[in-house]
């Protein structure tokens, strides 16, 4: 793979930044007792949990990158698997849906990632929205059980779209042919993940430091103007500062980061609404202290397809 220099710089930078963040957070936890943390040490504990998750992300992405494109595709396939399992655990299903579930886990998921690995972008972008969409209800209908049929099918298809289709657009960036950026596409994935995580973190912290003005009277307590603006601001600042690892000029990186943060924010909001509908606090329990994979990656999943198509439209040589 080309781009070793940038990759090494980014890796070193991330490790140093996380090291710094870990030390600062540890110091605050140890010594800071004044406001606003005095009574509300949930902030610092959450920050700690997130920093640990980021360490895991850096390690996993770097390890996968050592194996090149296949490594990244396999990593995202595994993430899709974990997310899909969390999602389909909560969706409506009956005994007759066993075939549908088997198709989702054992056919749709591997096939989508084979298409990504092979770089068949045309088929990759229609396989689940068209073929799985039409085939899934057929398997279910053959079992004859009509109770809640449309709900069962729709919720399952939603899981496929989100956990497999949308998520697979991140590794699909590797299949894009960007002139002057050959072999460095993995840096765009890293950029996406960093921007979205920065926005997520700011969304969590800003309202707690600057107060809460709800976006609308009926949305949950956590959806505030402070959080929204903090998320977009943090995303744009971090995304622009990291323009050097992308094929984007600074001003382009700022616009892309704004769009990615916006989509990420919207994604978090949608997923939170689904969780409330299903009556759960978290998607799972695989990551200690912060729920499941979906809780950490909902924003990445929502923004990956947009980023993919923007890069494909404006930067590739087709």
């Amino acid at each position, binding site marked *: 793979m080309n781009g070793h220099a940038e990759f090494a710089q980014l890796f070193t930078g991330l490790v140093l930044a996380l090291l710094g963040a870990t030390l600062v957070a540890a110091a605050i936890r140890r010594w800071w007792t004044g406001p606003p943390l005095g009574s509300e040490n949930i902030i610092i504990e959450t920050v700690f949990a997130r920093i640990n998750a980021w360490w895991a992300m850096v390690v996993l992405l770097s390890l996968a990158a050592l194996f090149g494109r296949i490594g990244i595709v396999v990593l995202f396939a595994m993430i899709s*698997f974990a997310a899909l*399992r*969390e999602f*389909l*655990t909560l969706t409506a*299903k009956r*005994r007759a849906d*066993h075939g549908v*579930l*088997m198709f989702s*886990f*054992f056919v749709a998921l591997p096939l989508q990632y084979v298409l990504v690995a092979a770089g068949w972008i045309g088929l990759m972008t229609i396989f689940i929205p068209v073929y799985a969409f039409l085939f899934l209800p057929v398997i279910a209908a053959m079992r004859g059980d009509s109770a809640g049929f449309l709900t069962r099918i729709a919720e399952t298809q939603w899981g496929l779209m989100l956990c497999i289709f949308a998520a697979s657009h991140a590794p699909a960036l590797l299949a894009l042919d960007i002139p002057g950026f050959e072999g460095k596409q993995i840096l765009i994935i890293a950029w996406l993940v960093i921007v979205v995580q920065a926005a997520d973190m700011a969304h969590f912290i800003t309202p707690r430091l600057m107060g809460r003005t709800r976006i609308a009277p009926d949305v949950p307590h956590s959806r505030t103007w402070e959080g929204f603006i903090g998320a977009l601001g943090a995303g744009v600042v971090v995304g622009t500062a990291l323009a050097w690892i992308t094929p984007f000029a600074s001003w382009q990186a700022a616009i892309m980061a704004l769009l990615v943060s916006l989509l990420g924010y919207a994604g978090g909001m949608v997923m939170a609404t689904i969780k409330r509908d299903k*009556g759960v606090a978290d998607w*799972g*329990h*695989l990551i200690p202290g912060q729920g499941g994979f979906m809780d950490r990656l909902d924003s990445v999943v929502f923004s990956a397809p947009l980023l993919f198509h923007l890069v494909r439209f404006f930067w590739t040589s087709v």
Partner: protein
Amino acid sequence: MLKRLVEAAAAIAGHGLVLFVRMVTAPRAIWAGIEPIPRKRVYFANHTSNADFPLVWAVLPAFLRSRTRPVAASDYWLKNRLRAFFGRDVLNAVLINRDRDNRDPEEDPVQRMIAALDEGSSLIIFPEGMRNLTEDPLLEFKTGLYHLAMARPDVDLVPTWIDNLNSVLPKGEIVPVPLICTVTFGRPIHIAPGEDRDIFLSRAHAALVALNKGSEE
């Protein structure tokens, strides 16, 4: 020598089984009202799938697992050599004969369970007596739990709700799908002196159903 080999194979298969169950169902134990400590207990659980035993067994910590024996039907677990190996050697099940009319008096299921308890084991039992394939969350209990509670009133009876396994492996399916399962262990119950059989059984039934409602919240 052969016995040693079988024991070694059973230990390896046991670890393999736990690993497989963990990979497929990413199971989580919820200890709600009781702690995982080494006391003599009877875990009584809802029964929807043949994988119920391995699942409860897999979520127990290793130091409890080695002393916890499932109580299972011999007609199922002795049907072929593979099942017999898993039932008898790996899970170390207390095998009972369900055929009420053609069994020896010494095969009495309750006596078998009491003997296992007296040897120091904990038990996993399914008081519904069979797999529940209905829409009803929990069937009526058989009387075995009552007789067990009468014979050994000091043993903790732990309601154990297994959630979602019927979606992972519904009856008649061979391939499990990897959905997440939870096993909720609730506050133990004991029989009160002179408590009526039906009252006790409905109390135990209610304690188990309550865990289902709890895990939905």
